[in-house]
């Protein structure tokens, strides 16, 4: 990895530092809230979800799309790199920006489930699947922002993926293979859980690989 890539990735983290810090802080607060009461649990979970989804949208929109509109992309491309180099650095940078808060908040959620006696440990697989879904979701939006220039198209991707969050919550939660065990005191890792996990990993890989394959073949970067 060239030093230029490292500089660019560091820059991405630096630019989004307040967003990341706020997300982590607010997310941890939500998890704490969820541990307090029934009501707190509902609000806390909703807040936790909203926070992660929000940064998942802001990062690609602001980091990629806005840069294109701002014409600061031209400045970036005048640096000693190719268009493909810059796209890769962007992708890595934004991925790290999302990964940091996502990982910490997911870990906090896992801890919440395991530590709180009021929350059955059977919820654990679902929490893990939800986390996995959220990062797969983010990578799809990131992929869309990297490959598309039309604002309308990108916003459509954002809307669709966000609708999927609700769909995920309803559908996956209702799948018998998962629903049956949510209330249990022991986490159950059955085939259904593994299948969903594999699908999530596949989607994630696809979303991250597609730009890496398509962008170097591009003939115009501006």
């Amino acid at each position, binding site marked *: 990895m060239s030093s230029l890539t490292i500089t660019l990735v560091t820059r991405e983290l630096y630019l989004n530092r307040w967003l990341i810090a706020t997300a982590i802080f607010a997310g941890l607060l939500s998890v704490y809230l969820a541990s307090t009461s029934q009501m707190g649990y509902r609000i806390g979970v909703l807040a936790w979800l909203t926070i992660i989804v929000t940064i998942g949208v802001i990062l690609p929109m602001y980091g990629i799309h806005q840069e294109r509109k701002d014409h600061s992309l*031209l400045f970036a491309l005048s640096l000693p790199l190719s268009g493909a180099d810059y796209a890769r650095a962007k992708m890595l940078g934004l991925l790290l920006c999302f990964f940091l808060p996502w990982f910490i908040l997911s870990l906090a959620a896992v801890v919440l489930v395991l530590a709180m006696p009021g929350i059955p440990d059977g919820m654990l697989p679902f929490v893990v699947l939800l986390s996995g879904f959220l990062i797969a979701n983010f990578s799809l939006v990131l992929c869309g922002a990297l490959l598309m220039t039309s604002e309308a198209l990108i916003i459509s991707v954002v809307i669709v993926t966000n609708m999927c969050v609700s769909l995920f919550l309803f559908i996956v939660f209702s799948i018998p293979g998962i629903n049956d065990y949510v209330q249990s005191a022991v986490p159950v890792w059955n085939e259904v859980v593994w299948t969903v996990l594999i699908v999530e990993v596949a989607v994630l890989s696809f979303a991250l690989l597609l730009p890496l394959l398509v962008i170097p073949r591009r003939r115009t970067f501006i």
Partner: protein
Amino acid sequence: MKTSAFEMRNVRKAFRFFALDDVSLELEPGQIMGFVGPNGAGKSTTLRILMGLVHADGGEVRLLGHPIPRDQRVAKRDIGFVSSDMRLFQQATLSWHMRFVASIYSEWDAAYATLLVRRFNLQPEQTVKNLSTGEHAKAALLLALARRPRLLILDEPTAGLDPVARHEVLAELMEVLRDERRAILFSSHNTVDVERISDRITFIDRGRVVDSSNKEEFLERWRRLQLQLGAGIRLPQSPEIVDLSVDGQFTTLTTDRFTPELATQIQQAGATILEVQRMSLEEIFVANVMRHRKERAQ
């Protein structure tokens, strides 16, 4: 054989509504080339192809000897690119940009950068989004100049600048040329500036290079002759005559191949030469483009 600062040979690139066709351009170190053309002629596209931001459909592009876009990473280390539609990162300050650029390029001259901040009258701690057009243009130029690159590619460097800022910018650009290993390519609508500081001039119109040569040679070749033709006298068609416009008794003849012999020929054809005028670069440019368009229409 010195490596040219840049070379484009027979470059073509097709877009939906526009195409660059057979563009060939070359510049030697120690020279400034002014790149002039109407809006939409393809100036920005040409410069972007040069920088590897757009890949040509055909032809050869070399920057400081490096084939583009293949070796653009290496080439760009020694090249400064500033475009009038380029923006720096809005949320950061000029100081941040200076540190950013310094961390990427080893040739960054901090002392020169400080000097330029003073000369250009800039406040380094101001956020980019609060800079005026002129300040932003100067800031972007500063970031390129302080690296002392061997080649500067500038897309309309003085666009939107007030006369004072323009003067400051042109002065710094000329300073670059003190070093005869360095070169500058700049596109501009400001024919006065181009006429003054360019060594070579290239005219482009509708995706084609109309003419490219040494400035003094242009200024020497082109003339406007004010003629008085006797009744019934018509001048024969001739390749040296670019344009002939009649206004009552008086005829204005524009030529791009002026010689004393031509003047004699015209007189022998029955015309009285009232005046031989040199043409400004702007007049040459317009006449050249008009002729080019007429030829293409045929």
